[in-house]
């Protein structure tokens, strides 16, 4: 028995060491640094205890960034969770023609680098002389100067990011929705159950395992994907109106070099996401339908 344990441990060792070196160690380091005031080069680290955390939680700027983060999450969920879900249902159960074409077309942007995508968007969305502005002008409208307008900037950056994640999410959820037994759906159809009820009462619960996964990934990964367009297009501006938690940690750490504050914010972000996952496990996971 003991032998087995050693063997098992040895087999885990390669992945553990990689995780340790690239995840757990940096994580521990971040946690440690979050208790200091430090600019990354100075030989002196000043211990401030929970000072960084207290300052962050009391800062109106951080409250603003939290609000932005929530707004981003809502938009990303609407565009990259709800829409693909419905679309997958339509394509798998209602319109079955041209599925391969849609799959390819939706997935295509996911393979393009977000940096490249963001740069293309700088041009497309130039509020004065980009193609969108010109088209709007022809229609007698004027495009808003989105890169400097609070609110609008969040919507536009979410859309740029969606361009990247929509396709992947769509493919994943299409797999989940297609997995719903067609016999059940046929039976419902025979009973003249309306389509929307087939969706809400049969497809949604039966594909919920994939659905919950996608829900969590859309929020957690979306926040990280957003980093690139924020960095390339607005750098968090105007006046932090487009910054989210992930970008703001970076801003504190590598733009103004308040490494301790940045680390503390990263830890807070981590705890926030962990709390979301906890809620998910506690309340949702129990009711999820797993086929096997």
């Amino acid at each position, binding site marked *: 028995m003991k032998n087995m344990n050693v063997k098992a441990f040895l087999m885990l060792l390669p992945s553990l060491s990689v995780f340790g070196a690239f995840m757990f160690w940096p994580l521990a380091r971040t946690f440690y640094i979050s208790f200091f005031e430090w*600019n990354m*080069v100075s030989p002196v680290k000043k211990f401030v205890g929970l000072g960084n955390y207290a300052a962050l939680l009391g800062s109106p700027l951080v409250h603003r960034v939290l609000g932005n983060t929530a707004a981003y999450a809502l938009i990303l969920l609407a565009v990259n969770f709800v829409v693909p879900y419905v679309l997958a249902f339509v394509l798998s159960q209602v319109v079955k023609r041209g599925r391969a074409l849609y799959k390819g077309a939706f997935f295509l942007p996911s393979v393009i680098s977000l940096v490249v995508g963001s740069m293309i968007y*700088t041009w497309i969305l130039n509020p004065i002389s980009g193609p969108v502005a010109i088209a709007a002008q022809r229609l007698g409208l004027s495009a808003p100067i989105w890169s400097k307008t609070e609110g609008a900037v969040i919507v536009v950056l979410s859309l740029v990011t969606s361009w990247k994640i929509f396709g992947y999410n769509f493919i994943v959820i299409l797999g989940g929705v297609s997995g719903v037994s067609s016999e059940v759906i046929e039976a419902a159809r025979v009973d003249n159950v309306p389509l929307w009820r087939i969706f809400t009462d049969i497809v949604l619960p039966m594909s919920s395992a994939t659905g919950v996964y996608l829900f969590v990934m859309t929020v957690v990964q979306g926040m990280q994907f957003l980093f690139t367009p924020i960095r390339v297009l607005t750098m968090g501006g105007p006046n932090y109106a487009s910054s989210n938690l992930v970008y703001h940690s970076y801003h504190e750490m590598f733009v103004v070099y308040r490494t301790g504050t940045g680390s503390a914010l990263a830890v807070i972000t981590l705890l926030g996401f962990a709390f979301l996952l906890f809620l998910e496990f506690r309340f949702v996971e129990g009711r999820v339908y797993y086929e096997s």
Partner: protein
Amino acid sequence: MNKAMGKLAAVLFLLVVLSAGEAAESKRTVVEYWHPNAEAQGGLVVAELVADFNSRSKTTEVRERFIPDMYKGVMQNLQAEAAAGKAPAIVQIGWAFLDYFSNNFIYTNPQTVIDKYFPEDATFIADNFLPNITALSTGGNGDLLGLPYSLSSPVLYLNRDMLRAAGLPENGPDTWESLREFASIIKERTGKYGLYVQEPADSWAQQAIVESAGGKFITFENGRARASFASDEGIRAFGVYADMVLKDKSALHITWDEGVQSFIDGNVGMLYTTIARRASIQKGAKFDVGAVGSPAWQGHTKKLPAGGCFLAITARSDEEKKSAWEFMRFLYSVESVAAWTKGTGYVPPREGVADAPNGLKSFLAENRMMEAATTQMPYVARWASFPGDAGLQAEQALLDMRDVILGGSESARDAMTRTQDEINQLLQ
């Protein structure tokens, strides 16, 4: 036996020769040169100069590295590199970061390197640089931190076709007051925007506006720096600029790239930005484009922060320091400086280039746009540089202030007073 020994000797000999060849090859010291020059801002010339140098030098190979986000980006990357215990050999340091650089990083006075390894260049700096130019890159302790390389000032680019279409004099305005009128008239008569003032990740152009109205970004009291831009003059100047954006809607508040793109596309009549963009604007514009000196406010003399950078030696080892000066010496040759000016629009930092036949003599005669910058050199002063650890944070606070004012969420008076207090708190 002898034969075998002979063969062995031959093989050994061959090996020695081969490895010697290899050693000669790898003897060239490889050093890094960091710069923020994107392609449209002299990046092409950087690549050309580096390639030219590498093909000539027997001792040194330079690798250029482009760092995005202007001089602030360079500073930040330098900080990350220093945290990892490394440093490039030569770096372009923006004027605004002079104090922050000298307080936080290891550098070597170029004269020290010269005296130690290059006696033939002993008087190179004294012979070729005016004292007021070397003063720009001299630290508070009197130490030479590096050598001025790029010198620029803000100028006003004009779309002459658009000015004519609006019935305005094609030589543009000479005060900010008349500039405001020009912009309104352009907006009214052509439907296009009148003005865009550059908004990169620094407050250089905004400093020119405030200081040309009699304000002062930084004042020194008993040797201590204090932010002082929220004076009545400063607030008035920034207020007019904000009014053009918010009330007249004749000026634009967008990112730098978007703004310059829009001027080149013919959607904005006047562009207030650095002379360093001259080459790419001239190349891109499909209309009659001109440039005039920076305007002043009525009753005031203009005062323009020197833009650009100096070259600092951040190499750690003696080998690299030697290579660094060898490369700098090349960059400061008449031909290289001439190429740099032609490719960018920076004003030559050293003497003997403007009227040299192998320098810029014919170029300046043909390129009247350069005159806008060369004639306003007497008005050029230091770029505000906040000292100490707070330098980066102070610079960031100024950017935030610009966003708040031009976005209309706070008045110039409130935002400037608040930011000034914040920065002074940081500086304590």
